[in-house]
C-alpha cells in the first residue's frame, strides 16, 4: 500500500545539535500512527517538518507520492495536512466560529462578499455547528461564545473538530491529552477514533502510553533523532515500548527502521 505521507533521510541541525539524524517516516491510509520518544529524541522536530513549521536541512517528504516542500504551516494546510498543536493555536477572545474559520473565512456571495468583503457568518456558524455535532460536541450551547469561556476539554474538542473539518489528507495531533483530566482525555480519544473512522489518517504524538496503546494501529518509536522501530501495539507490551524508546532493549529484528 502506498503511504499517504512519507519522509526519507530527514536531517535538521540547530547549530551543533542534530535534532534529526536521517529520520524516516511513513503514514498509511486510514491508520492512527503514534509517535513516541523520550524528551529530546527529536519527535517534535520531525512533526514540525511534516507540518511545515520547520524546513529540514536534508531529506525529502512525499504526500500521496508527490514530492512536497513546505515553507510555512500555511503551505501544509493548503496541501491538506492539518495540525492540532499542543498550544491549540486558538485566539481566546474570539468565538468558536471565528477560530474554526481563522485564515479561511467564508465570504458572502455577490456584491456584499466581493466588494464589501463581508463575511458569511450564518454559513460559517452552520458549518461549525455541524462539524462540532458530528464529533459529539453538542454540549457547547453557544457557537458564538469566546473560546476562553470553554473548559480545557472543550477547547481541545474545538481544535480537533477544526482539524478534522479541514484536513483533507492528514491530521497531526501533538500531545492532545497532555493538559486534560481523565474524563476529558477520554472524550478526546473518542474524538480521535471518530476522525479515523471517517477515513482520515492521524499522526498522534503522546507521552501517555495507555492512550497510545489504546488507539494506535502502529507505533513509531523515535530515539536519538531517528526512527528506532515501528511496532504494533498487539505484539509488544508497554514496557517493551519504553525499553526500546530509552535504549534498554534493542529494536526487534525486521521492525527496525
Amino acid at each position, binding site marked *: 500500500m502506498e503511504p499517504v505521507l512519507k519522509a526519507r533521510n530527514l536531517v535538521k541541525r540547530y547549530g551543533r545539535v542534530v535534532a534529526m539524524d536521517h529520520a524516516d517516516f511513513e503514514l498509511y491510509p486510514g491508520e492512527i500512527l503514534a509517535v513516541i520518544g523520550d524528551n529530546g529524541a527529536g519527535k517534535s522536530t520531525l512533526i514540525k517538518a511534516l507540518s511545515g*513549521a520547520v524546513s529540514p536541512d536534508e531529506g525529502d517528504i512525499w504526500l500521496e507520492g508527490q514530492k512536497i516542500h513546505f515553507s510555512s*504551516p*500555511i503551505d501544509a*494546510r493548503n496541501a491538506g495536512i492539518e*495540525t492540532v*498543536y499542543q*498550544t*491549540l*493555536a*486558538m*485566539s*481566546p*477572545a*474570539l468565538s468558536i466560529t*471565528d*477560530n474554526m474559520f*481563522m*485564515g*479561511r*473565512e467564508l*465570504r458572502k456571495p455577490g456584491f456584499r462578499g466581493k466588494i*464589501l*468583503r*463581508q*463575511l458569511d457568518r450564518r454559513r460559517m456558524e452552520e458549518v461549525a455547528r455541524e462539524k462540532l455535532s458530528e464529533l459529539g460536541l453538542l*454540549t457547547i450551547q453557544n457557537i458564538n461564545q*469566546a473560546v*476562553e*469561556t470553554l473548559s480545557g476539554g472543550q477547547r481541545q474538542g474545538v481544535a480537533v473538530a*477544526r482539524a478534522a473539518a479541514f484536513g483533507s489528507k492528514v491530521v497531526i495531533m501533538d500531545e492532545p491529552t497532555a493538559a486534560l483530566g*481523565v*474524563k476529558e482525555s*477520554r*472524550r478526546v*480519544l*473518542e474524538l480521535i477514533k471518530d476522525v479515523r473512522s471517517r477515513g482520515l489518517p492521524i499522526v498522534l504524538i503522546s507521552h501517555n502510553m495507555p492512550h497510545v*496503546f*489504546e488507539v494506535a494501529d502502529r507505533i513509531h518509536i523515535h530515539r536519538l533523532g531517528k526512527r528506532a522501530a515501528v511496532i504494533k501495539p498487539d505484539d509488544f507490551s508497554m514496557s517493551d515500548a519504553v525499553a526500546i524508546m530509552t535504549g534498554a532493549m534493542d529494536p526487534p529484528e525486521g521492525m527496525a527502521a
Partner: protein
Amino acid sequence: MASNDRATRGPTEYESAASTSPSAVAEFDQHHQTLVHKIQHALHQTPSLVPLIVLMVSILIFGILLGSKFFSPFALTLILQQVQIIGIVAAAQSIVILTAGIDLSVGAIMVLSSVVMGQFTFRYGLPPEIAVICGLICGTLCGYINGFLVAVVKLPPFIVTLGMWQIILATNFLYSANETIRSQEISELAPFLQFFGNKVNIGGAIFTYGVIFMVVLVIVLAYCLRQTAWGRHVYAVGDDPEAAQLSGVQVKRTLISVYMLSGLICAFAGWALIGRIGSVSPTSGQLANIESITAVVIGGISLFGGRGSVLGTLFGALIVGVFTLGLRLLGADAQWTYLLIGLLIIAAVAVDQWIRKVSV
C-alpha cells in the same frame, strides 16, 4: 485476549460516566449566575457598553447641572467639533492597540501630513488636490515604516513609534522651517485644504465635514473589524500572534496593513486639522498621541490587545469632550478635567481586568 477485553470495557464505563455528568455541570453553572456575573458576561460580549453608559450618565449629569446652556444642539455639536481631531486619531490608535501595539507617532504623522499638504501647495505650487494626495501618501508611508519595523524587524511597537515620533517631528520642523501658513492665505488660494472645516447647519446643530468624517470613519472601521476576515485577523493577531500564525493568519501582512492604515487615517486627521484650525502649523497637535491613547483606554479597548471595539473609542473621545466642555461651562478649574480623566483611565483599565476574569 483478557487484556483486550479490559481495554474495551474500560472506555465504555468512562463513556457512561461522561454522558451523565455534563448536565450536572450546567446546573451548577446556572446556580451561580448572579446579577454581577450576568453584567460581567454582557460586558465581555460588548465591551463598548461601559463607555456608552459613562457617556450617557455624564451628559445627563451635566445636563441637569447646566440646563439648556449645555443641553442645546449648539453646545452638544460643539463637543463633536472639539473632539473630531482626537476622535479620528484615536480611531487610528484603536486598530494599532487592538494588535497589542501602540502608536506614539500618530500626532507627529498627523502634523507632518498637514504640513506636506500645505507646503506642497504653497511652496511648489501644486494643485491642492494633488498636495492632499501627497500628504495622504506621506502618512501611509510613515505608517509603513512603523509596520515594517514592528512586523519584520520585530522591534517592540513602543520603541519603534517612540523613535519615529521624534524622527517625524524633527523632519516636520526641518522641512517646514518652522513656518506657519496663515488661514487667510489658505482660504483665498487653496480652500480645498480647509474642506473638512465646511459646516452643515441643522436647526442650530452645527456639523463640520470633519465631524461627519469622524463618525463615518468609525462606522466603516467597526464594519471592517467585525464583518471582514481582515478584522478578525487584527483581533487574532492582538490576542495571540503565534496562535494566529499557526492557524493560518498572515501575521506580518496584517500588522503592516494595520500600521499603514493608521498612518493613512492620521494623514486624514492632518487634513481635518487644517479645516479645524484654519492654518497649517507645524507646532499644532502636540498632545494628540497621549489624548488618543486616553480616548482608546477610556473607550474600553484593552492595551494588551485583541479586545474592545472602535465604537468604544468614539465614546471615549466624546466622554473627554463632555467633561472638558461641561466643567468649563461650570466655571471649574481646568485641572479638574485632567483629574477626572485620570480617574476614568484607571477605572477603565480596572474594569478591563475584571472583564477578562470572566473565564476564570
